């Protein structure tokens, strides 16, 4: 999911509203989770990238750092954080078992859902995509985002037991 994360210099893991995490955030070290991601993403995209693969990556990084507005970067940071949390929960589920399956599911889907919603918000507020969303202004997008997040967390809290 969070392919941007190997790009983001992970600035100041925001201590923003993180109600979505549940119990599983205990022992497993993030060190194991973090490397697993980039390898996966490079495996996904690196299939045919023999010619100047490093250059491509560099290009992307440059493009990202130059062209992305500060607000969007903030969103990206949040998404990266969510991806890490989600990966942690998944790892916990694999290592320690999924016993309160309700809790795992709602915690995990809270991160996934929030990630997806944030990605949607990011897409909708990007200047380049303006033509795709004639009826969605940035303010409207944010309002939608808040409403959908509320719905999401209502369901999560209801499901968590």
């Amino acid at each position, binding site marked *: *999911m969070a*392919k*941007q994360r190997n790009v983001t210099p992970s600035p100041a893991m925001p201590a923003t509203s993180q109600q979505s995490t549940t119990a599983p955030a205990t022992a497993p070290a993030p060190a194991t989770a973090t490397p697993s991601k980039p390898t996966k993403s490079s495996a*996904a*995209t690196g*299939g*045919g*990238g023999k*010619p100047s693969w490093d250059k*491509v990556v560099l*290009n*992307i990084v440059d*493009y*990202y750092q130059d*062209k992305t507005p500060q607000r969007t970067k903030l969103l990206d940071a949040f998404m990266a954080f969510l991806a890490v949390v989600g990966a942690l929960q998944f790892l916990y589920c694999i290592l320690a078992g999924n016993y309160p*399956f309700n809790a795992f*599911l*709602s915690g995990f*889907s809270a991160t*996934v*859902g929030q990630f*997806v*919603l944030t*990605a*949607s*918000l990011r*897409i*909708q507020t990007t200047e*380049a*995509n303006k033509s*795709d*969303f004639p*009826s*969605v202004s940035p303010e*409207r*997008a944010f*309002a*939608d*985002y808040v*409403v*959908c997040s509320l*719905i*999401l967390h209502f*369901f*999560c809290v*209801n*499901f968590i037991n």
Partner: protein
Amino acid sequence: MSADTLQVIASAGKGQSTRTSLRVVILFLIAGAAIASRLFSVIRFESIIHEFDPWFNFRATKYLVANGFYNFWDWFDDRTWHPLGRVTGGTLYPGLMVTSGVIYHALRALTIPVDIRNICVLLAPAFSGLTAFAAYLLTNEMTTSPSAGLLAAAFMGIAPGYISRSVAGSYDNEAIAIFLLVFTFFLWIKALKQGSMLWGGLCALFYGYMVASWGGYAFITCLLPLHAFVLICMGRYSTRLYVAYTTWYALGTLASMQIPFVGFLPVKTSEHMPALGIFGFLQLLAFLDYVRSAIPSRQFQTFLWVATGGVFGLGLAVLVIATSAGFIAPWSGRFYSLWDTGYAKIHIPIIASVSEHQPTAWPAFFFDLNMLIWLFPAGVYLCFQNLADEHVFIVVYALFGSYFAGVMVRLMLTLTPVVCVAAAMAASSILDTYLNAKSPVPEEQSTEESDASAKKAAKSGLKATSKPVVGIYGFFSKGSVVAALTIYLLLFVMHCTWVTSNAYSSPSVVLASRMPNGQQHIIDDYREAYQWLRQNTPDDAKIMSWWDYGYQIGGMADRPTLVDNNTWNNTHIATVGKAMSSREEVSYPIMRQHEVDYVLVVFGGLLGYSGDDINKFLWMVRIAEGIWPDEVKERDFFTPRGEYRVDSEASETMKNSLMYKMSYYNYNSLFPPGQAMDRVRQARLPEVGPTLSTIEEAFTSENWIIRIYKVKDLDTFGRDHQSAAAFDRGLKKKKVSKKRGPRQLRVD
């Protein structure tokens, strides 16, 4: 019909506001017509719950209203599935009951004292009005023609394919589910078109409501990913698709998991995996899309698509491995039976035995949809003409809906909405073309001609690229086409009314027949028998019957049953099947073990009522055979020539089966000697009727449709029931044994 005449007026009314108000009025009229056409059964019979499943829903609703929501949620029902009980609160779709409960309390709050039964009876018609409105909204998303939506609403309101499950009194899950289905699709299209999270979230909410109401939600769960997948394959991936789909999936899946009966299924069963797969695939696509916008290089782009295909294949492989390793439950039997229609018959007779799971007969399409069925392909073709994302949806839905409707009768219900929408598009495009009072201006004609000549010169097959202005000039052709279509629409209305009135408005609890003088005669045996049970048996008397009648006994007679229409435990049903199809000596211990007090059978031989237990008997045998292949054999119930007979040539196993005996016990006494006729199977019964020793007749209804037998207690003197009965008949024990002796010798 009303829509097209009114459309003339609508085109006459110039102002926008007049049109809007007219449209509102028309929609209200359509809703009124939809409701009114479903009231035949209430007017002819009475306000009564129909058929089988609705009786359970009604009983559950009463429980909900009486005990409150939390008790309903935790309801353990010990009056069904007798020794086992049923965790009812966790194994039902609560949407329907909660909806009527809310309506009930809302009306109470408004100080309108309405009986809960009337709410239940009239819920389906009320929602059909809403369905018509939803069809209007959905169609308006598809086309710019103002009349298409209204036509779709009118079609949806009166199409028999939908009426079949939503007449007043058929208080079934489908009553609200079809509205939710159509409305969810509308919200999906809206979300997709606008790429808005809010619409996606609303779509998810209604999807959750749908999950709470009907098991058919899997149709949405599969159709939306399929639509998204087709769009991706067509190269129509857009950020709007990403926003709409991911919002719907993330919220909708969580919403669906709130229902205890669904629970973890969305992450554990194969039916829900396509949705998850497409979700992951879209994440990947979105990322690639972002990267592509970062580096505009064609070579890069192509290899990205290759990588996408690779990852998709990888995901599929992982899914297959996870399924085979058992992390994800494979497709359920009901789904297999959708692909292979013979599957259920071989492996799960209980599914195949349900009449609404049978494949659809061809005439049923015309019967249920009339002229819509031939307008339907035209509408789908029109979708191809300007193929936008939403039109792809209609095409996909049409394909799958048609397939499923062909496989299972009941899925005609899911086909009906798309047929209505597509047919309305076709009909409205005909009307728009021919109902235009103004002829095309001559200049246009000349340009068209020059266009045509130019094209002839060019001789290119690219007609579609330069669309000539097509118009109808002659008033005669206009008039004749419009008149023909109007006549068709009128015929459609007549057909719908006729079908509704004759085929779909019978409560099946109460039967109607005509006396020779044309007077209506009501046959009310079911309620007579259930009332007898209610008044003459102890409150906890266990009733054994075939599962079809379980819900009715629970609802009308309020007595515990062994099995009912919630066929969750195949073994238990097979036990009842075995008891019914075995000899008395075998059945009696089974009935004693299950504390059965009364046995209820439905017998239509006297009246010619074909839906009786003898006709269903082979299913009981098959289901019992599935569990006890050594003790019950289907072959034994046929004559040596392979016929299923009940007369004197019936096989010994058949004649000795409990079901046969209970059905025909004492039946001879109604007729002169040797004249006993079974009017369903047109068979003359043997002169000597069956004898019963372990059970005794307790009640037989007026027309013999329902027969109730009491299971005898153990004999006071410790004899077995056969000898006790023989003694009662005046045969001495010695004589019997004497008779038996030589016969056995001869056999040996």
